[in-house]
């Protein structure tokens, strides 16, 4: 239906997205760049502390290139970024790149795990609610959704630790665990916490889209052809409902990443979010700057990826 073959369309979408991304990426780097410059009292002073001697401040300034004009500083900053240098921690002296590379994995694992749990919980619930629309099952699901939407993630985490971890002792309540099983079991409670904050959004929008599909003409046509029961659902309804779910995950990546910061701190998981908060508390702003930038880049990368997946799956999306 669409012009060109699939790879061609993908290339088209990729090209269009990348051109749109460039101004946003520049904006993102500008924000993180200005973050450090707009510190009250100036960055150098903040970095070395209020009681530092003027000589020490000047030394830091020179070391960080803060004595150059702002535009030169920004170009230098961009140049460093292009070489993969995110700066060096003032407190520990380690490079921010290595902090990111050793903690990014934990965060991505957590988010992936949470999305899987959310789908396992949310998809059946949404199908039930849509199948029995306006009956008691639907009412119960909707009531649960409304209540969960206002649930603070940190509180949910603490309550899950209390009941599933401490009282029932089903799952470990913190740490990282080792090996595949160790990771899966140690990450379960944090991932469940994060998943539950997403399930409500997932169920709400999937229930609506499935209800629409059930009433669509082509489903009626399939029914007239004698298709019914699980086969109708598998072939026509769920297949069509999967696409909006992918879109939804793309739209919520940003929120999931934000919530993961809180969840990591509830469960003392050493991911990016925990590093971010501890860097803020130590006033280690080069690290804060680097991690913030990485979060921004991840959001942009994943939303681009979701666009590509959508193009690959949906014949109606054209380049």
């Amino acid at each position: 239906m669409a012009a060109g073959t699939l790879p061609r369309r993908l290339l088209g979408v990729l090209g269009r997205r990348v051109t749109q991304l460039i101004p946003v990426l520049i904006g993102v780097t500008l924000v993180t760049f200005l973050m450090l410059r707009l510190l009250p009292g100036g960055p150098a002073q903040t970095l070395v502390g209020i009681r530092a001697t003027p000589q020490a401040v000047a030394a830091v300034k020179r070391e960080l290139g803060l004595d150059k004009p702002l535009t030169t500083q920004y170009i230098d900053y961009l140049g460093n970024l292009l070489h993969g240098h995110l700066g060096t921690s003032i407190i520990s002296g380690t490079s921010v790149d290595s902090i990111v590379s050793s903690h990014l994995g934990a965060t991505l694992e957590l988010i992936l795990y949470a999305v899987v749990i959310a789908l396992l919980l949310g998809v059946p619930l949404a199908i039930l609610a849509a199948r029995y629309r306006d009956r008691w099952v639907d009412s119960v699901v909707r009531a649960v959704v409304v209540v969960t939407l206002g649930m603070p993630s940190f509180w949910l985490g603490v309550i899950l630790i209390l009941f599933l971890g401490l009282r029932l002792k089903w799952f470990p309540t913190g740490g990282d665990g080792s090996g595949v099983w160790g990771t899966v079991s140690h990450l379960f409670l944090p991932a469940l916490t994060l998943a539950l904050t997403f399930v409500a959004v997932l169920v709400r929008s999937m229930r609506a889209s499935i209800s629409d599909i059930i009433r669509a003409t082509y489903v009626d046509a399939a029914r007239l052809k004698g298709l019914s029961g699980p086969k109708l659902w598998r072939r026509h309804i769920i297949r069509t409902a999967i696409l909006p779910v992918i879109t939804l995950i793309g739209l919520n990546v940003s929120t999931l990443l934000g919530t993961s910061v809180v969840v990591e701190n509830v469960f003392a998981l050493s991911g990016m979010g925990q590093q971010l908060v501890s860097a803020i508390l130590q006033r280690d702003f080069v690290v804060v700057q680097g991690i913030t930038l990485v979060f921004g880049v991840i959001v942009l990368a994943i939303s681009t990826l979701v666009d590509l997946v959508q193009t690959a799956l949906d014949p109606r999306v054209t380049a």
Partner: protein
Amino acid sequence: MIEQTATAGVDLAPTMRPGDRRRTRVNLKLTLGLLIMGAVVFSCLGAPLITSQSPTTLGADILGGPGGAHLLGTDQYGRDMLARVLYAGRVDLLIGVVLVGVAMILGTVAGLVAGWYGGWIAALIMRIVDVGFAFPFLVLVIALVGLKGPGLGSLLLGVSLVAWIFYARLVRAEVLAIRDANYIRAATLSGFSTPRVLGLHVLPNVLGQVLVYGSSDFVYAILLGASVSYLGLGVQSPTPEWGAMVQQGQNFVASQWWLSLFPGVAIIVVGLGCSLIGDGLADVLRTGRR
């Protein structure tokens, strides 16, 4: 009103829509939501009427369970939890009101300007909005809060710098949708000044959506304030705040579960009230709009 119409009709009997009648009927969700929020606001602002205890006075009864003199128990300093939850509500509700208010005003103005004028100014505003959306909201907020140093003031400032983008995007879309409506054209043709057209003709037709969004956003604002405070970057001890209270109670969760449980329940109640108000408002608007 409606009986009058029948005799006054000139060309056609006025078309009566079912919505006209439904509008006057009480909306169940809206009423329930308003009742919940009314009760929350009343008990937080009127906390001294409900409990004689102080939220900050230390007591001898340390980590006491719920019941008896302390309905919700006491914390590790012997402070009454009921009083703390209620007084904390004042702080959290204030955070919600300020954050939503500032974001709504800034975002509405930005969205009106971007939607009405278009051109480079709209491009500039919308690029800033895009950049804002590129970061996880919470990450950007805590990074900004961190720059100024933890505290309630930084929290309010940091969120205000970012949260307007949601309203700007919403309002711009709404303005674009009605900009070419005949009644807006007519207002322009009547020679009204741009502020008059925007303020008296465009804004009232956009405001409904903004308020619906704002009422559900209120919960997110409170959740955000509580999350930042939970992380230790927002409201600082000894001021009671729901998120910070959950964090302080977390160390005792194995045995003194009530320390973390009740502040969270308070947030959920507010969340429930606000979603009901938001849903109810949306219903009312839908029927009002035909």
